[in-house]
């Protein structure tokens, strides 16, 4: 039994769904942020598996760019979380209702 790229894509889909469930179920902003990272990783795995299936290297180039954007996103996002925590003393998104009107 050989492992085809479809197996990796199926696993990536499951990882993506778990990440999406983390976004929906958790209220800690840090854990929600980690869930975003998990979803990005799942998509990266899909890119690599598709690139192997089609025998092109473009998938790996895409993964490289996704990693750069994710790194920039982590820097800014964590800075925002720290700034909010310094102001509100909480990292729970349920208590950030300042825009509720």
């Amino acid at each position: 039994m050989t492992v085809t790229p479809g197996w990796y894509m199926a696993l990536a889909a499951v990882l993506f769904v778990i990440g999406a469930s983390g976004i929906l179920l958790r209220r800690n902003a840090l854990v929600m942020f980690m869930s975003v990272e998990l979803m990005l990783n799942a998509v990266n795995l899909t890119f690599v598996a598709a690139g192997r299936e089609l025998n092109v290297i473009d998938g790996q180039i895409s993964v490289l760019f996704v990693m750069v954007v994710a790194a920039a996103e982590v820097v800014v996002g964590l800075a925002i979380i720290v700034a909010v925590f310094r102001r509100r003393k909480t990292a729970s998104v349920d208590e950030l209702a300042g825009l509720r009107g």
Partner: protein
Amino acid sequence: MVELVLFVVFAAAALFGAVTMVWARNPVYSAMGLMLSMFSVAVFYVSNGAHFIAAVQVIIYAGAVMTLFLFVIMLIGVDKAETRTENLPLQRPAALGLIALFGAGVVVAGRSAWVTGRTVSPGSPIDGSIEEVGGELFNNWLLPFEITALLLIIAAAGAIALAFFRDDEEGDA
């Protein structure tokens, strides 16, 4: 055969790490679960021939990004474990329903045949070495690569600007 064993072992590790990340109440455990998932994905990169990407994954994600996450977790405190009580009564069942719907949609989309117009390229299988990735990156993707430099500078400047905010400016909380 080796790839099958690697896939089974590290798929289990990746799923365990991901579920741990979502389920753990302590954010440190969540970070550890995510790190396990990221290492497993790096193993999958290797078995798919993306050796350079696997190295970058371990260095940047499992190294730098997770260290940053752990720093922030330590900074804002790990002693306050999140309670599982939900203020909105319908939120959690609705979320689980949406997750199930999304998973079913992924399964349906994955089982149907998609025609993207892209055919399998001839030639020897790609090996994802630094030479191959770098050659493609600097020949065909040079402008996007330069733009990422701009993006990283903007992100660094934005993080520094956010760090300069002080509570005593307006202080509504």
